């Protein structure tokens, strides 16, 4: 190390880094939006089971999940401008890095979300839809009023996991020069010629770790809040089963 380790500098660094969380969250929120919309379309395609479209959706999900995020990020950052310029005459020179980061992470998130949404919808008993149709709801109404609310609750834990993965993968955005909390940290290290690198990394680690724990807690609370009847049902069932066993 070029300078002795300065414990208190960690807190200084955290204070310097905090404002840049805004960019991190902005990138995350936009990517979640983009990814969820694209993911819903993919999930819907798969649920309808049209062979060709499903095959395409499966292929897309498969390759996105197999590709390292950094490779996709580089591909979008270096490749997209050329496609836009040559194909559509759009010059991306003045585009901010945020644009490319959001595209990349929307693509990544859509593949995860497609599976999260599909499996949540598939987990709902077929009888739910049939019962809704039987009392005169349309297919659309049945989906929005009966299936979707239940599927959302089922999807919550997986959504939370995917979100945390996205948060961590999002840290890669600095590699193309995006200045979020990670990017700012790297800049700070560069500005000091590598001094205090360790303190800044630790500060970043503490920030990411707290956000992860915070998200986990929030989603756990949400699960408990939105599914009280689920817990109740499980209890009831196991009570019944226990009796059956005893009897």
């Amino acid at each position, binding site marked *: 190390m070029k300078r002795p380790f300065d414990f208190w500098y960690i807190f200084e660094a955290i204070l310097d880094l905090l404002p840049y969380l805004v960019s991190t969250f902005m990138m995350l929120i936009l990517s979640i939006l983009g990814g969820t919309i694209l993911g819903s379309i993919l999930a819907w395609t798969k649920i309808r089971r049209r062979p060709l479209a499903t095959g395409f959706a499966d292929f897309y999900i498969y*390759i996105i*999940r197999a*590709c*390292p995020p950094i*490779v996709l990020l*580089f591909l979008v950052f270096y*490749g997209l401008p050329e496609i836009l310029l040559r194909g559509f005459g759009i010059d991306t020179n003045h585009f901010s890095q945020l644009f490319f980061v959001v595209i990349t992470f929307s693509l990544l998130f859509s593949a995860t979300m497609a599976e999260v949404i599909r499996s949540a919808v598939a987990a709902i008993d077929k009888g739910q839809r049939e019962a809704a149709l039987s009392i005169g709801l349309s297919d659309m109404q049945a989906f929005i009023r009966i299936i979707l609310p239940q599927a959302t609750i089922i999807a919550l834990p997986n959504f939370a996991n995917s979100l*945390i993965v996205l948060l961590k993968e999002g*840290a*890669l955005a600095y590699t193309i020069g995006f200045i979020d909390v990670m990017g700012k940290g790297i800049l700070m290290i560069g500005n000091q010629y590598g001094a205090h690198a360790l303190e800044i990394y630790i500060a970043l680690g503490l920030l990411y770790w707290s956000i992860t724990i915070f998200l986990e807690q929030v989603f756990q609370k949400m699960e408990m809040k939105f599914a009280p009847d689920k817990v109740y049902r499980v209890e009831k069932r196991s009570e019944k089963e226990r009796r059956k066993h005893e009897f």
Partner: protein
Amino acid sequence: MNFNLDFMVATFWVSLTGLGVTLKLTFIPLLLATPIAFAFAIIRLKKNQGFYQIITFYISLLRGTPIVLQILLFYSLLPSVLNALFESLQIELDIFSLNPIIYAYIIFTLNSVATLSEVFRSALLAVQNGQLEAAKTIGLTSFQAYVRIVIPQALVSALPNISNTTVNLLKGTSLAFLMTVKEITALAKLEAAYGYNYIEAYITIFVIYVLLATVIQLLFGFLEKRFGRYKYPRNREKENLYA
């Protein structure tokens, strides 16, 4: 767009020379991490030991921070730590002449331990309690029951998750260029910068990674079939033979 196909083919071969490094970066940490992760999982399940808190803390920390940050942090920290360690043990070894791949092994192992121990823990939990009880009633000791009945079943049910972990680790190795390790991505980056053929270079390694992930998944799929036979119905011909 002047898409350069020749360059793609050339990059493909250049990147492939990094294949060995990428595979080593994936499988050596995986093998090193497995026994430690297993021990961690068992300690976490038994709860009442002092290690429990430390291990839970470790897992939460490693799973709560981006791997890119872990790489940067350990890469700047490890040399001085190892140096101090070797000095205090009076081992003559120039730490700065070490192949950076050693650091990559250490970091990916530390990270895989956290992921795998969660995989093993949930797999052990998924084996029904009745299996352990039944083993005890026929006179097996707890140890025998674990080794012969519980762990084999847990390993099979963990295979899909181990497969995922391996693919994620493979993807993670693409960050080893931060430690100047010459794996697939690092080589492609070099090639790309040389002739400004970024798209071609990254499409090429995109394809390589997808192929590698496919091979890994096929491999685990095979293992699952082979060792998970007991989960599936028998094939028809054999059924008829016995009927």
